[in-house]
């Protein structure tokens, strides 16, 4: 829908060729310099197609989160071009083009789980009945159907993060931005959530940009892995990753999986030798 709207509107600012409808994110030579002169991103170019699951991976402080925040219009690039759904990130944000999942659940403790999920729907003035239906639908989707009336602080960390994913999905954005969503969780919970996220992505056909510093997580989830170097962040290599669609956790023991993981590890090492 958003793309149809984008197509019918002439791209006023971009003199370059209008991106095809299947391109969701297009970054060209993107730079981000923070106040104080710290350069977070240097010349990052990236294209994300509709339905892609792209992971940004790199050492801590390499600007992968900054890249995600630039797409979300939470950081303003200093130079370069960035388009989301063919529009500026600001326009895309105001169109509610993306759902953002933070490192922490960021749930409001005074709202029940169900009302946390309907928060964006309230801001979009959806009728009450529709909001309740969506809450039930997305709670079911993340496997928390019976927990709608609980408060977030009555749930475990993993469950809270699933609620925050349901909240990001509830208004049906076509793009999901995830910033190390499982970084604070233990490995067993994380494995479970990875399976869950993979199933969700396949079912919804969404485009996902996923920031992580876990190689197995990136290989397991992604269709493409973007390896970034230490600060200032640049793209070292883009590694395609086409594991069979119906994947189980056991795939992580397969030779194909290990081959991709090995390539990612090599690229990360190359990035480190820069400095």
């Amino acid at each position: 829908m958003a793309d149809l709207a984008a197509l019918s509107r002439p791209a006023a600012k971009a003199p370059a060729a209008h991106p095809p409808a299947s391109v969701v994110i297009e970054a060209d030579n993107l730079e981000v310099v923070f106040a104080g002169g710290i350069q977070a991103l240097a010349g990052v170019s990236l294209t994300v197609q509709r339905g892609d699951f792209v992971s940004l991976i790199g050492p801590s402080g390499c600007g992968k989160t900054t890249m995600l925040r630039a797409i979300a219009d939470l950081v303003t690039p200093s130079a370069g071009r960035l388009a989301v759904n063919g529009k500026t990130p600001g326009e895309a944000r105001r169109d509610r083009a993306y759902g953002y999942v933070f490192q922490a659940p960021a749930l409001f403790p005074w709202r029940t789980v169900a009302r946390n999920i309907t928060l964006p729907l309230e801001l979009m003035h959806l009728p009450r009945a529709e909001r309740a239906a969506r809450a039930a639908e997305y709670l079911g989707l993340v496997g928390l159907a019976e927990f709608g009336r609980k408060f977030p602080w009555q749930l475990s960390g993993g469950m809270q993060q699933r609620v925050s994913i349901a909240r990001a999905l509830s208004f049906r954005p076509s793009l999901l931005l995830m910033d190390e969503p499982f970084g604070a969780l233990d490995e067993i919970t994380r494995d479970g959530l990875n399976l869950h996220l993979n199933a969700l992505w396949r079912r919804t056909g969404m485009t996902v940009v996923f920031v992580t510093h876990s190689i197995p997580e990136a290989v397991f989830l992604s269709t493409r892995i973007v390896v970034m170097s230490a600060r200032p962040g640049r793209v070292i290599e883009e590694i395609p990753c086409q594991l069979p669609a119906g994947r189980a956790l056991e795939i992580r023991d397969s030779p194909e999986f290990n081959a991709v993981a090995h390539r990612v590890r090599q690229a990360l090492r190359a990035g480190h030798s820069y400095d």
Partner: protein
Amino acid sequence: MRRRAAASALPVLAIAAGLAARALLGHAPASLFLLFVLVTLAATAGALFALAGGTSLAERLASPLLFGLLVLWAWEMLVLGLKVSPVLLPAPSAVAVAFADHYRTLAADFRLTYLHSVVIGYAIGCCLGFAVAIAIDRSPFLKRGLGPFASLMSAMPIVAVAPIMIMWFGFGWPSKAAVVVLMTFFPMLVSTTAGLAEAGAMEHELMQSYAAGYSATLIKLRLPAALPLIFTALKLNSTLALIGAVVAEFFGTPIGGMGFRIATEAARMDLGVVWATITVAALAGSISFGLIALLERAMTFWHPSFRAPAGS
């Protein structure tokens, strides 16, 4: 079971022995009187010990109640036994008598001081402090100009302006309410301003990602997050308002009121009425504080200090 029996029998024994000791004071032989005093103390100690393990609401309420009675009893016995002058400290029974004798006056004072100066001044002061905090938050211009001014004003001893308020608003209750407004305004302003800064950066960015505007972010995120600090100010102000109204009346009031009563009756050495008024003030203050605390519990149940234990 034995603890239960002790918890219900011992307080009764303690109260009976205490009343007997009070009745015998100054009449009976010293040994009999001392026996009742010792029985009272031992029974109270035993009762408090037995009640300490209790879990029911009645048992939990009984301990502080019994302890309060013990203090009143000790006060009564000491004042009467040592023949302390009633000007220095009247016995609780004398205060009770003064309370009964002057019931109408005390009720009229309560209506004037509490229901007019305190309640109205409190409501206006808190609302104004809240409104100005929002206005300051909304406008960077006001934030820079009014913020430091407000912190300066909040450090001022506000009751000192009571004579000025009398010049402005006359001798009646409005001048006392004005002092209360000034006293409650700044804590509310400062607390609300601090409360509005409570919401985390991530929660703000979440709202930003939904393209939520200023008022939506204020209503859905920042005000709920500010509630615990707002309630801190509401509770603090309930005490400050009473102090402000009572002390402001010391500076002149023609009709009556609790502060007026305390000042004039103390000058006339009628300390029973003074203590009775202080009792009314203490009760009114505690009850209002308790009611606000209950409301706080109901509205900020989610805050870590009130949360029910986690788990389903």
